[in-house]
């Protein structure tokens, strides 16, 4: 088993995250304070869902540029439906998930039926979803978020945020999808070689549409968590997700051309980016150099993992 873990494509990232965490704890004792760990887990909760939403699409060899726009649209729909229509929270959650499913369905069907690259389709739908968001909100936040939602965004048990439940369940389900279910295997097969997948009888259209729906639902969960955390339906939720949605899966070893992803690797990618962001604040890095450090540290993390993989690869 240990040999299996050592040989896994995420082990190097695990070591990088461990070393980074240990180093931070040594240089900045506040890193291990319960509140900082709570803050880290809150960030992980949101970013893990965002990264998973993109990873599912990378698995089939496509890209989803509308992840943030879907998350934002669901966020304002979730908050707005509770404020304007007085919907109870469960109904608002269902509405949010339904909207996401529709968005994903649109992305998937358009991509498959037209044969146009998902990059182009989701670039267009990004604009549509964001346009709907702005049309509905007129750039004004929805403030009437019920107390129970706000409380969920801040509640913790023994230092663990309640919000963490959502990504943990989602990660387990996504892991099962790609490691134990036929559909997940079909997604990877499609990503690896579309022609071969078609010849082997995989219903490509169905797989593409389902992947986009799953991606959108994950983005929706992230959007609703953001509302709970921020305590308002801010129209700009999701605007900043795109880079991280690609960075974490790629750091985690995903092949952008499709066919190979790592759920654990993606989670570790999120951990590393979150740690780096946290470190830049904790160490008081000059704001004008934050982006430079962030990019450099991500490159180092990816480089170390790839170096280890090459060392392990048979000659």
């Amino acid at each position, binding site marked *: 088993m240990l040999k299996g873990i050592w040989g896994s494509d995420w082990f190097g990232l695990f070591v990088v995250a461990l070393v980074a965490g240990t180093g931070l704890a040594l240089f*900045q004792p*506040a*890193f291990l*304070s319960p*509140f*900082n760990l*709570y*803050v*880290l887990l*809150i*960030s992980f909760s*949101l970013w893990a869902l965002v990264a998973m939403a993109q990873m599912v699409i990378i698995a089939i060899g496509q890209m989803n540029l509308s992840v943030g726009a879907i998350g934002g649209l669901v966020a304002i729909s979730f908050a707005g439906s509770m404020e304007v229509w007085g919907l109870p929270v469960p109904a608002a959650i269902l509405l949010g998930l339904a909207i996401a499913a529709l968005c994903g369905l649109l992305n998937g069907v358009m991509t498959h039926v037209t044969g146009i690259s998902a990059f182009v389709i989701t670039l267009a739908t990004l*604009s549509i979803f*964001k*346009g709907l968001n*702005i049309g509905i*909100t*007129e*750039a*004004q*936040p929805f*403030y009437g978020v019920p107390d129970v939602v706000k409380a969920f965004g*801040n509640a913790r048990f023994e230092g663990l945020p309640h919000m963490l439940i959502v990504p943990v369940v989602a990660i387990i389900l996504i892991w099962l999808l790609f490691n134990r279910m036929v559909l997940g295997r079909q997604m990877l097969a499609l990503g690896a070689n579309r022609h071969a997948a078609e010849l082997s009888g995989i219903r490509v259209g169905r797989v593409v549409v389902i992947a986009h729906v799953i991606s959108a639902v994950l983005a929706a969960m992230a959007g609703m968590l*953001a509302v709970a*955390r*921020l*305590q*308002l339906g*801010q*129209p*700009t*939720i999701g*605007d*900043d*997700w795109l880079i991280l949605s690609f960075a974490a899966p790629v750091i985690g070893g995903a092949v952008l051309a499709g066919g190979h992803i790592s759920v654990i690797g993606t989670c570790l990618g999120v951990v590393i980016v*979150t740690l780096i*962001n*946290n470190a830049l*604040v*904790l160490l*008081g890095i*000059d*704001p*004008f150099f*934050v*982006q430079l450090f962030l990019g450099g540290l991500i490159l180092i993390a990816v480089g170390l993992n790839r170096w280890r993989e090459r060392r392990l690869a048979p000659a």
Partner: protein
Amino acid sequence: MRVARMLPLAVLAAGIAGPAMASDTKVALVPGGPHPYFAAWENAAAAAAADFGIEAEYRVPAAWELSKQNEMIESLVAQGFNAFLVFPGDANGTNATLEELAAFDIPSAALAGCTVDPTAASFCLGTDVARSAYLGTKELIEAMGGSGRIAHFTGFLVDPNTQLRIEAVEQAVAEAGGGVEIIQVIADIDAPEPADEKINAFLAARGSEVDGIVTTAWVPSVVAATSLRNLGDKRIRMVGIDHDEVVLSAIEDGFVDGTMLQNPYGQGYIGSYAMDLIRQGCTMKEDAPWQQTAQTAHFIDSGTAFVDADQVKDYQAAMVAVTDEIMATFKDDFLVCN
């Protein structure tokens, strides 16, 4: 290329532009993109339309992209708008569009943010961001009792105003005489999720070291106010910026000491008034009391005011007073009308 694309509009523009009767002025107020700060422009446009007998409308580009803003302006020209108040999508890039408008005798001005000289904008009417940040920091230092350690949370680093704000906060701290220290500046947190992540990481690591927070951008103000409320922390003093409900409510409840109001309503209202006068043949006065900024020599301060718990319930009155004060002398101070 862009001029060529505008040519089909020239015929239409020729029909709607140039000196005209007051009633045919049709002003478009165009922000750089969607943002709650600009919502007051809509009310300002409606009030200006009612008070000055003009048409005035607030139109928002779908995203914060210069190209989208330019396309919207071109479309609005086609729809008959003959005066423009624009938040520059880019301090340099917007100049090309304003020059095209000027070529069709369509006046324009920069609102809430300036274009870089030389510019076709008749003037730039906006907040003196450095003064606002300076005064806000002064208020914070006073709330802290004249000494302590402060953190500054601000917006996009690519926004030239951010550097001005950072310097203004530093100046106010320097003037405090050594008792005040800036322990951290966190920037580029204009999106809510990174703001939440970084502000809370800061509070986790250095919350016990910091005595005051000054914020000079909308989103960091909202997120910092929410974080202090969540922590239940009234020891850390805070002065924010703008008038988001979250910030105003935190002031009422004692989690935030006050906020530096800007005057978006006054910008829209006074700007529309000025556009109508220019359309009637008035020209900008060269020896007007212009303020010089890093971007333009034709800056007009739209005013700023500190609002604390005593004034928060009626915070709009503070800005109406500032607007009235500017309006009282605006025509005489800045325009030459025959």
